[in-house]
């Protein structure tokens, strides 16, 4: 195993862990409100690694939903990970063994997907594992802290940490936009369309998860028609 690559991943996992700590903390509070204990919340966060998905899970458990409803809701809310996994599956060298792929699949979150996509050329999953160890620790710790001590984190600090996740996204999308005019337009169009979908009547009724899927399919699909990528060997 490439230790240096693992450590590089761990370093890039630090801002993710900070953001996760803040987000998971609020999840923990919600879990505590329906009387889930620290161990149950830890199990949920470790297993699901999904923010909106876990909020839904808490609501479903709290309302004693049936199995079909749980599967259907979880499926719809987390469907965007399907697209992300499709994209990542093509970023791996053909020789990467299956067990490494199965482990990588566990860590397909918005943020870990983001930094893994930003790697030049093929992705060595070791990098993602390094980032995952640090960030999953932050995610689980945040959840448990939220359950056992809902009011230890000052609001202002939590609010500042919350933004770290978006800062990371900017660090991933801005550099390619600076290098290529097409990427700059792509990013700008995506943001503008997202703004419209978040505010316009009718479309803003669509859940956030579905808005992301619809816009991604439409815009990335159009971009692939307009500017097919050149083969990179």
């Amino acid at each position: 195993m490439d230790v240096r690559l693992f450590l590089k991943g761990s370093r890039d996992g630090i801002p993710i862990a900070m953001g996760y700590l803040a987000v998971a903390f609020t999840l923990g509070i919600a879990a505590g409100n329906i009387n889930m204990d620290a161990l149950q919340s830890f199990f949920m966060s470790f297993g699901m690694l999904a923010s909106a998905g876990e909020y839904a899970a808490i609501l479903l458990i709290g309302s004693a939903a049936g199995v079909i409803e749980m599967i259907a809701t979880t499926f719809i809310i987390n469907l965007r990970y399907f697209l992300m996994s499709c994209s990542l599956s093509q970023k791996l060298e053909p020789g990467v063994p299956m067990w490494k792929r199965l482990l990588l699949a566990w860590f397909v979150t918005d943020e870990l997907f983001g930094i893994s996509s930003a790697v030049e050329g093929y992705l060595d999953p070791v990098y993602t594992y390094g980032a995952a160890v640090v960030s999953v620790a932050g995610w689980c710790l945040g959840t448990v802290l939220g359950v056992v001590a809902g009011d230890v984190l000052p609001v202002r600090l939590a609010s500042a940490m919350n933004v770290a996740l978006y800062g990371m996204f900017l660090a991933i999308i801005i550099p390619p936009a600076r290098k290529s005019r097409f990427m700059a337009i792509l990013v700008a169009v995506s943001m503008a369309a997202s703004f419209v979908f978040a505010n316009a009547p009718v479309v803003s009724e669509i859940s956030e998860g579905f808005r992301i899927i619809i816009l991604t399919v439409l815009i990335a699909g159009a971009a692939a028609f307009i500017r097919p990528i050149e083969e990179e060997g």
Partner: protein
Amino acid sequence: MFDKRVYGSLIVMILTVYAIRVLPFLIFRKEIKNKWVRSFLHYVPYVTLAVMTFPAILTAASSVWAGGAALVTGIAVALLGGDLFVVAISTCVAVFLTEMVIL
């Protein structure tokens, strides 16, 4: 307290999420040859992350001004060549300072 219903529910949902994440890796074990599909999957991350960032960043902090400051700072630091860690921390600092001024 060991609650069978809670753990049962969690296991069902954990398996559902994992199934969504793992299926593409099982289906696409080889490189896809179709140029359009390859291009589409190449653009997916940038579009998805851009869509998730804006306008959500504006409401991520306790005020729109702080969120806006984070957006501008993040873009500026990324343009100046800051790496992932530096850009992320710079947005946190921007929020913290802005909130200190206005709150």
